[in-house]
């Protein structure tokens, strides 16, 4: 008798936990492109709970979530518009407008602030944080596992010597150790030259320094003009003398992949790796 009662009790509790989402996650608003992308990857059980995505979700320059979310879904800008959607949870980042974050806090709306965008580990951590907050841990784990599986596949594909040097250079801004680019470069079998020269995180260098490093590959961002961009960079005074320019090592990758901190980072690995002569199709 006690077994039955205990069993029923446990069963009810278990059912209750699965059937009722944790208080405060029925209506979700995202203000970060990364979350726009990840909320989609988490699957159909999450989609109906999303009542608003960030205004940049449809911007092909920054987002891999273009065309995924219905155009009728709100893209609120500012705390007022967000509050009007009566969300239970707003996903923000440390670069979301400070006034918006402060206002949401004052109104008493629950926020999940994602901070730190320094590579694959941070990506996994953020997916976990979102999944946790939405109480869909299983979906989160699955999403990360998919990412890791694809990453492993790419690593294997691009394994092997040699390991050429690469610099991500955006008009002076370079990515050193502890950045998503450094992780992507390593996965594609490259050495991040900025990191080897002691640079940690993102910083700015002069073009002379870039030329003095003489990397075999230079990665730049592009939009629709990737081939033209590679030609233009390769012809620049100074850069024209680097091995990258002389040996076809200027790689233009579309901005929304290059700056992605989500699954789009794998596209950087793919495109970079494919540029190595021994791996090109």
């Amino acid at each position: 008798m006690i077994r039955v009662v205990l069993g029923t009790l446990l069963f009810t509790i278990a059912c209750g936990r699965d059937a009722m989402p944790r208080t405060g996650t029925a209506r979700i608003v995202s203000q970060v492109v990364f979350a726009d992308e990840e909320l989609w990857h988490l699957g159909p059980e999450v989609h109906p709970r999303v009542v608003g995505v960030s205004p940049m979700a449809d911007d092909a320059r920054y987002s891999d979530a273009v065309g995924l979310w219905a155009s009728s879904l709100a893209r609120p800008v500012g705390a007022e518009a967000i509050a009007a959607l009566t969300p239970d949870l707003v996903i923000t980042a440390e670069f979301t407008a400070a006034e918006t974050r402060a206002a949401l806090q004052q109104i008493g709306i629950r926020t999940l602030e994602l901070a730190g965008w320094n590579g694959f580990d941070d990506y996994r951590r953020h997916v976990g944080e979102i999944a946790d907050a939405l109480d869909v841990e299983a979906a989160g784990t699955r999403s990360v596992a998919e990412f890791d599986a694809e990453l492993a596949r790419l690593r294997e594909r691009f394994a092997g010597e040699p390991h050429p040097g690469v610099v991500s250079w955006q008009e002076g801004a370079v990515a050193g150790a502890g950045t998503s680019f450094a992780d992507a470069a390593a996965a594609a079998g490259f050495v991040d030259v900025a990191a080897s020269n002691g640079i940690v995180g993102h910083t700015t260098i002069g073009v002379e320094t870039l030329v003095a490093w003489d990397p075999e590959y230079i990665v730049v961002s592009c939009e629709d003009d990737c081939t033209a961009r590679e030609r233009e960079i390769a012809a620049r005074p100074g850069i024209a003398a680097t091995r990258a320019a002389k040996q076809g090592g200027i790689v233009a990758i579309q901005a929304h992949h290059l700056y992605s901190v989500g699954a789009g980072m794998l596209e950087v690995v793919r495109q970079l790796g494919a540029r190595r002569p021994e791996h090109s199709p």
Partner: protein
Amino acid sequence: MSPARRLGVVLTIVAALLGIVAIGVGPGDLDVSKILGAIGRGLVGRDDPSDLGDALVWWLRVPRVLVVLLVGAALAGGGAVTQGLFRNPLADPSVLGISLGAAFVAVLGLLMGLDRAGIWVTPVLAATGAALALAILLALASRTSDTTTLLLAGVALGATCGAATTCVLALAGDRYDLGIRVMRWLMGSFEGRSWGHFIGAAIPIGLGLVLAMSQARDLDALALGDDVAASLGASPRRVGRRAVTSVALLVGGATAVAGVLGFLGLVVPHVVRWRLGGAHRSLIPISALGGAVILLAVDTWTRVATEALPPGVITSLLGAPAFLWILLAQARPRSQ
């Protein structure tokens, strides 16, 4: 030797020495023979743009040093002319709104992504903006010989362009990469300036300096006011037009190739006038030399010590307290 000539010789020597130092320092582990070799090859047109040493010295350092000297000379020389034209020791060439007009068109180009077509795009757009600003000012200058009206017109033009630039930035607020590109350009930069930039800047700046010097006598005549100047045979209206044109060429050329750099045009001629007197025949060239030397020193230091700090930030950081110090020194009571 007159004090002005002495100072001119000293500044020229300092500029040459600084230039040598600037070409000699930087990344790349180049020894003296490699540097001299690159310069030698470059001078006879036998340099190899695909050789790392040649590229660093002849395609990056040497033209950059020359561009910096040109821009410093242009801003300080333009400042001397502006102060003489408006009879105001606190006038700065930016008061005419030329650099802000140049900045506005350049920022528009950045917003529309035109700069992706090549590194020559932004300078050309900035030069166009400067030319448009000049056209507006000349149209106003022809209607009045009153320099106060001209000054107010320049201030209004500058304010309008500044407001328009802010508006453009606000509307594109979500595009943080644009924000960074615009800020970087607005703070001034000599990164990657090569021979194309040098030639593109040398033409307007050279013309501007020649035109400025041709107005030396008439700018002197303005010292006692428009009426006395007219009685001395100088036409205030004609001087106004030509002086404004020379400032536009100087500031437009400098801004197009380097972005916005503050304070040089204000402090350098002010100090030169204080020490040497106001005869424009020597004021303009000595100011130009002084501006060139100071800017080269600033750029060389930022290139070696910090790599990231834009020269415009340094000129402002140094220029503002320097100016305060000068004003205090001038205010010290003199004995009769």
